[in-house]
């Protein structure tokens, strides 16, 4: 033991660097999909910024984020579903139905915003319970259960809306359209004064990030494990902080941080925690990776699947609220085929259709890739036909690249 420590200390700088490179290599290898998608995202953005001088403006980028929010939130939930080896085709219908519920509770029954939202979330959870029950306890394939769920929700949507469009109040619409208020200094998109609330939140996020990174590092050292050498560590910190700062500053220079993006950040953080840090998350991956082995390891598969669908239902409701608020009304056709965008986002972000693999951050990047393509092509006046085709091809290409890079690795 003591000898071991000595030799470890004697490792010269070159040896340490080599070890660090190994760690970096391994982490890149394990997250190759996220990195490639992220680079692809930057690439797409560069191309559009060259083709259109509007693309890179804070105004356009902020709109882009706004358009992505609900898809990205829904993608967080569907990652769990797909990782567990299931699928949820009812997302779009749930978004439509819950959105309508939220709108109608306010317009027709005069409920306040808070109770309306609460009931809507409960409706989402109940839909999730229903679907989860059939999948987990009655062993009906999720494909069928959620296909049926989609039809049922579409029917209910038509019923509750009576085919009419219900407008929502401007206060409610803020959830999907507006930005956090400023705290101290008024700022407009035209001046170069950054939006102060956004900057404060940015500082909080960065501080929290630094806190966790340093605590992790200290803990690892106290366990006697390898850590990145200082230079690499600070380089990594600088990169991540730079990235966080860029996103926030873009928004700060326009109208600030939108509510919906704030919600996305909270949910993204929460789901990242769930998938990487909790036993529940670990169980979900194990179930998708090898259901039989998971069962024999004592995992309560039924309960886990039920919870996964409840989560998807609740996120569906949140998506429904944000989407309705963004559009400003609930219509009988709302949410139609939104599930396809959501599933595509998750899959582009590296979620394996066979289950067992996938990350939240990947899905959010996936959602951004799709939204960026859409936004950029709109700016370039590309027609709907071409836009749909391009997005389809991108989905295909992303999965193909993934499969062939995996083959090479093994």
């Amino acid at each position, binding site marked *: 033991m003591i000898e071991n420590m000595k030799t470890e200390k004697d490792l010269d700088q070159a040896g340490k660097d080599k070890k660090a490179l190994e760690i970096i290599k391994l982490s890149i290898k394990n997250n190759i999909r996220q990195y490639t998608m992220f680079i692809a995202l930057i690439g797409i953005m560069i191309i559009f910024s060259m083709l259109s001088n509007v693309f890179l403006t804070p105004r356009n980028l902020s709109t882009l984020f706004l358009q992505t929010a609900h898809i990205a939130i829904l993608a967080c939930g569907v990652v769990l579903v797909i990782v567990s080896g299931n699928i949820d085709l009812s997302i779009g219908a749930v978004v439509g139905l819950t959105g309508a519920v939220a709108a109608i509770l306010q317009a027709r029954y005069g409920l306040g915003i808070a109770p309306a939202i609460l009931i809507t979330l409960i409706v989402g959870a109940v839909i999730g319970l229903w679907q989860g029950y059939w999948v987990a306890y009655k062993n009906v394939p999720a494909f069928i259960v959620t296909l049926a769920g989609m039809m049922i929700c579409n029917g209910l949507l038509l019923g509750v809306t009576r085919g009419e469009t219900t407008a929502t109040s401007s206060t409610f619409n803020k959830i999907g359209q507006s930005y956090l208020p400023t705290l101290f200094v008024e700022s407009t998109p035209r001046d170069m004064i950054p939006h102060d609330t956004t900057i404060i939140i940015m500082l909080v996020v960065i501080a929290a990030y630094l806190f966790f990174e340093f605590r992790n590092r200290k803990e690892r050292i106290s366990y006697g494990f390898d850590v990145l050498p200082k230079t690499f560590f600070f380089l990594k910190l600088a990169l991540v902080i730079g990235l966080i700062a860029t996103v926030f500053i873009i928004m700060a220079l326009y109208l600030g941080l939108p509510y919906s993006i704030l919600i996305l950040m909270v949910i993204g953080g929460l789901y990242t925690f769930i998938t990487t*840090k*909790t036993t529940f998350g670990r169980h979900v*991956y194990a179930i998708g990776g090898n259901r*039989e*082995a998971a069962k*024999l*390891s*004592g995992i*309560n598969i039924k309960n886990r699947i039920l919870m996964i669908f409840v989560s998807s239902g609740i996120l569906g409701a949140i998506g429904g609220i944000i989407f309705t608020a963004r559009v400003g009304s609930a219509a009988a056709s709302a949410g139609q085929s939104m599930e396809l965008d959501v599933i595509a986002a998750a899959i582009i972000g590296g979620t394996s259709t066979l289950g*067992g693999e996938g990350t939240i951050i990947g899905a959010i990047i996936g959602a951004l890739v799709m939204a960026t393509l859409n936004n950029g092509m709109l700016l370039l006046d590309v027609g709907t036909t071409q836009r749909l085709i391009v997005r389809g091809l991108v989905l295909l290409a992303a999965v193909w690249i993934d499969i062939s890079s995996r083959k090479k690795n093994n």
Partner: protein
Amino acid sequence: MSNYILEMKDIVKEFPGVRALDSVCLNIKAGEIHALVGENGAGKSTLMKVLSGVYPYGSYEGEIIIDGKPQKFSNTKESESAGIGIIYQELTLVKQMNICENIFLGNEFNSHGIIDWNKAMRETKRLLEMVGLNDSPDTKIVNLGIGKQQLVEIAKSISKNVKLLILDEPTAALNENDSENLLNIIRRFKREGISCIYISHKLKEVKAIADRITVIRDGKTIETFDNDASVSQDRIITGMVGREITQLFPRKVHTPGETLMKVKNWTVYNPEVPDKKLIDDVSFEARKGEILGLAGLMGAGRTELMMSLFGAYGEKISGEVEIEDKTVKIKEPRDAIKNGLCYLSEDRKKNGLVLMMDIKENITLASLKQIAGIKGINENEEIKVANNYVKALKIKTPSLEQKARNLSGGNQQKVVISKWLMASPKILVLDEPTRGIDVGAKNEIYNIINDLVDQGVSIIIISSELPEILGISDRILVMHEGKFTAELDWQEANQEKIMHFATGGGH
């Protein structure tokens, strides 16, 4: 000048972080049976995958020469047409297809895409005769036992005119009879001029069948020698592990304590044939600090008995289980685990591992509670715990983050064993725990079992290898067609007695 049909020269193959093969040389003479032995993770399977083109030319260094001609296989099709047939450690048959379809999968006799089934059936019949299988060619694979499936694999590879047949641990899952049968077939092939590379951890078989033996260790060729009478099993072991193993079965005298688990009148019906009893009114006890061996032939119901007790098998079950004098209801594996009953499955790929997860995640899967608090899973603690097992069981891996699928077969087994050790069971059922494990590691596992027993764990071990059952059990129950036919103390037990009762013989 060389009379070698195959020469592999200085083969080097690297995976991220591992040098799996480090200039390995292997020469095969025409018409010989050549055994390839080595510890888990030594590189045997990898070497064969290089040879068969699974790892294409360019992904490794070194030369492959067949009949004097250098070869550059870029896929398995090319190696097949050069006369190389390989049967992998994991069977690759399509379970829902029949024998004939499997044999000609990808090589169907066809004209313009229309398959000539008559010809295929005739040809299958002929091939099945060659391997001594008299099932009909349209039997589905699911309905065949593992021994017969193995024969179908062989028939499949000889359908492609092999000159060199490679068998990677073909008998790991076979019982003695099936194994003997397989060895005879290989001997017959040899007379017909087919050479064979035979990989096995069962040194008795290696002794019995090989003309020459090559030992590899840590990705290097250690030696190649003729398998003549002067070569003993111990001699081979020393070459493999680089040290002597004095006692493969470390016999320790245990003093069994109180009864931990009591099973009364356990009856399990066949889930497919509801009227048929698979386990018929079985009662037994497992005691603290004792190794209970379950012997029997394949299909006697040992696995079904234990899986049903564990809550993982059967729908219609009657009987009673007491653990520590309390009657327990076990409906699902998690109930069993909560009550301290753990079960190591005989099929690690299907029931044991999550292949896409890494080593540490697999080890902690059944005991996440131990390392998780309100702040979630403590990853540092996880690494620490997993690392202890990797060290204790000498799991060969470049890092804890290695995916389970990238481990060698034997090391995968050690990962699953670690998983159950971590769950700190009171009663641990080990179903074929040393399948595919090298002698050195076997010995280590027996030592671990003995340690567990010393700590008061009750061990129940199922094994098809009689020497293993005889070597480590304190008490042996022999099963035949769902019933216990004998209970033997280790001192009175021997192979003949066990076989007598296992085949249904009476007292």
